[in-house]
Every structure is written in C-alpha cells, then in structure tokens.
C-alpha cells in the first residue's frame, strides 16, 4: 500500500474527504518529526517506537589506496515494533 492508497483508506474510514485525511496525516508526521530527538523516542500508533540511534565514528581503510578515513558519527532513525505487532506478524503464514 502506498501513500495514496493509505490516504484513500483513511478518508473512507473517517468519513472525511481525501484532502482532509491527507492534511491530518501530514500534521501527524510533522509533529512526530518535530518531537523526535536522541533522548526522546516517539511512539508510532500502537505499532512501535521511533528511536534515534547514534552510529559512532569509525576508522575505515580504503583497500585500494590504503588511505585511512575517520568516518564521522551519524544519527539514524530506527523503528522498533511492539511485541504485539511482532507476534501478529509472526503468525502470518506464507501465502505466495
């Protein structure tokens, strides 16, 4: 399901226009992005949490030139699903 289908489904469920549903979704994403920091994970519905992980700086060596690079630290977004969602997903059988 892509974003468009999601908006359509949301609009249907809430009995609002697609435009309104898209606006609501936009606000939700905006707020979630705003409050997410390293110290502050954000819950995503009942599905899990968004967390920020810090990747430490590391030394890498170019195997060709043997030059050593100090790769700087980096922050990445990480999603940790709740156990409820995980178990639900696990119960799914392969249907291909």
């Amino acid at each position, binding site marked *: *399901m*892509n*974003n468009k*289908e*999601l908006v359509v*489904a*949301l609009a249907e*469920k*809430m009995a609002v226009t697609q435009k309104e549903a898209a606006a*609501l*979704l*936009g*606000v*939700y*994403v*905006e*707020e*979630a*992005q*705003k*409050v*997410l920091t390293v*110290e*502050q*994970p*954000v*819950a*995503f*519905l*009942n*599905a899990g*949490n968004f*967390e*920020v992980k810090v990747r430490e700086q590391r*030394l890498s060596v170019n195997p060709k030139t*043997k*030059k*050593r*690079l*100090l*790769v*700087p*630290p*980096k*922050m*990445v*977004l*990480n*999603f940790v*699903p709740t156990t409820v*969602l*995980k178990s*639900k*997903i*696990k119960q*799914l059988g*392969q249907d*291909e």
Partner: protein
Amino acid sequence: MSEKINSKELAKLMASHLGVSLQASNAFLEAFQDVFEEALLRDKVVKINGVGTFKLVWHAPRKSVNVRTGDEMEIAGHYKISFLPDGDWNTKVNEPMAHLEAVELPGEGDVITVPTDTVEDIDSEMPLEENGGKADDYVLPMEHLNEQVTEVKSLLAGIMGDSANMTSEPDESSEVAEVQESIEENAVEEDSVAEETIEINIPQIKEVTDLVSEIQAVPEVESNVEPNQEQTVDDVSDELSEESEVVEVLPEAQQEEPVVETVAEEQMEETEAEDDSVKEEPQVPKEQDNEPQEPTKHKTCVWPWLVGVLCLLVVAGLGYYFYNTYYTGDNNVQENLIAEESVEPVDSLVNVAEETVEEVVYDSTYYFPPETGYEAYDIPRKYTDYIAYRTVTSEDRLVTLALQYYGHKFFWVYIYEANRDVLSHPDKLTVGQQLKIPQIDTSLIDTGNSELMEYVKKLGDVYVGK
C-alpha cells in the same frame, strides 16, 4: 531514552497544532492505527510519505539445534518487519551531525603526529563549550616537542640512511625524549654559566661538524641503537663536566650517532638558549637532582648496557614530565616574573599579538598569496544586507547555519566574516549570541563551481587555523 512521547501526547500536540478537539485527533489516530495494521498485514508493505516504508520480510524456515538438548529442530518460516526511513526524515534526524565529513588520517608511520591530529579533528568537529580553555595550556609544550621531533627525525634520516628504517619507532621516540632531556640539561647548565657556555660551544660545533663529515665517509652503518644512546648521554654528561672532551671521544667509528645528536643538541641549544633562559628558571633545582645519577651509573654499569639504558629512559621520562608540569604549571608565575623584570622580547610579543587581533577585526577578508590562483574570489566582501539575525542555540555551529541558509556547509566562512566583531574563533560560539546572516551574491554560493568550493574550503582552513 528517558521520556518517551506516547501516542496520547502526540494526539495532544496534533490537536493544538490544528486547533481541533482532542477527540478529533484521537479519532484520527485510531483510524490510522486500524488502517495501518490492516494494510500492513494484508499488503505486506505500507508506505507513508515523510515517515518511510514498513515492509514485511519473509524469513524462510531453517534447521537449527536446540541449545539445551542438542536435538535438531526446525525454525518455522516467519515474517519480520523492516522499516526503511524516508530520506527526508533521515537527513532531518542527522542534522546536528550533518556538517561532519570524513577526515583522511596520515599513514601509520607517524606515531607522534597521528594522535594529536585526531584530537584536533575531533575538537574542530565537535566544538563543545568545555573544549575552550583546557586545550590551550597544552599546546605550547606539544608544539615544542613536535618541532624538535621533526628536526631530530630529519637529521637522523639524513645521516643514518638505510639504518633509519631498521630502527623501530619506540626507539626513535625514546631517542627524542633523550635528546629533549639533554637539551634541558644543557639549557639549565647554560643558565648558570650563561654566556661562557655559548662561547665554548661554537668552536666545538665547528670541530664536531668537521669530524661528522669525516665519519660519514666511512660506509659502516650502525644498527645497534641502544649503546649509542648511552653514549649520547655520556657525551652530554662529559660535556657538562669537562666541556672540551667531546673531541677526544670522537675518533672511534662507533661514535657516528652520538656525534650527530650532539650536533643537533648544540644547534638547538644555541637557538633556544636565549629564549629559554627566562622560562627554564623554575626547573633548575629538579634537573640538578637528576644529574648526579648519570655519571655514577656510568661508572658502575659499564658492562650491562641494557640496565643503564633502562634507567636513563626512566630518568629522561621523569625529566620531561617535570619539565612539562613546571612549564605549564608555572606559566603565571613566569609571566609575573617577566612583567616585573620587564623583559623586552616577551612584552613586545604580547603587544604584537594584540595588534594583529585588532587588525583582523577590521579586515573582513583574508587574502591568499597570489600564486595560489584564487584571485577571482579573493575580492573584498562587504556585508551590508542581512537575510536573518540568529540567536545561537547550543546545537548551532557555523557549518549548520551555512547549510541551512546557503545550502552548503563550506560557506560558513561568510557568516564568520560578517560576525568577526563578535566571534574570536569560528568554533567559539556562545549560546545566546546574536549572529548576522549576510545576504551573499548567488555567484559566491554556487555549489557547482568547484574552484569556488576549493577556495572557500581553503579559506575555512585558514580561519580555523589549520
């Protein structure tokens, strides 16, 4: 991971953002939850703009072993959820560190320069407030040491030729320490004897250099370092007691290295003698404590060289340590002394420093020497129009501001130039400070122009003081 923002709080934020009731936003979240879960379980993939893609990945059944019983078992095939964040959000998350870039480190050979470089890099990358004061105190001794290291290394490399490769690194560094030690001793000695020593040293050097050139003709190369080190210090102590004896010791073929080192020492002595004469005062008593040990050791331990060398290394290390602590610790005292005695050179140095700082404030642009080929961009810039005024927060760096306002981190130099009056150094932003973000001509912030990018990068290096 202390305070988690849960869905309820998020609903509140949404409600206040939209100006709707809490029920409305809760209703949305509920609907969203249902739709999301349904879609995920049905389609195995849900994409949300601005968040990312949730995807269920099939893990095929596989065989494994029960750890406890050792029985073979099969792990059933199952789905796992994977999440791929939207590129937009990922860059947003990484914003505080977006200005960092990979730094190329020098090769493994430079044992002494590598650690200092990395420390400097980290400092400049993460200019935290705490870094301000402490580092400055240690800069002088380190520079001092590095200068000497390079000098001694070049001398050794020039004369030892092939054998330089055979010498392992620790030996080199210990040699350095040794030389440093002997320099200190000589400097101390010279304090007490002052001009006499210098006068005596000059003819010595001439003789010694003559001998060096003679000995260089001899093809034999010394690979055994340790006895030579011993010899060096012996020479030094000999020098200290009977200053003219160096010549007598020389004619033996083994003396190749010691001679070189003594030459190096004496050259450095000469250059440092006058500068150091004021600084070295407080360490005189300590060094005198150390000195008597060396001659006695020389007499008793003629055969077991190794023991002697080890002792000397320890003494050298201690000497350098005390030298450092005295040097850094007594800075203030020394300054007071200097002020009282009103020594001319130091005072004038301080004045010069102040003057240059004042000049820099009014001259907003740095000019590269003409041969670098940056004339096209090396034009005086005047900052009159400002697109924004910014109060510095704890997360702001010049690079992040440049990234935000001009689209590339290298352009921080413009912000720095426009704020020269309040910024003493590009890394020294204080929270609450007002910064002016100047309007820059589009030709000067053209990221596609590689020459310009090179220029601003170089300019940045100059400002940071690399």
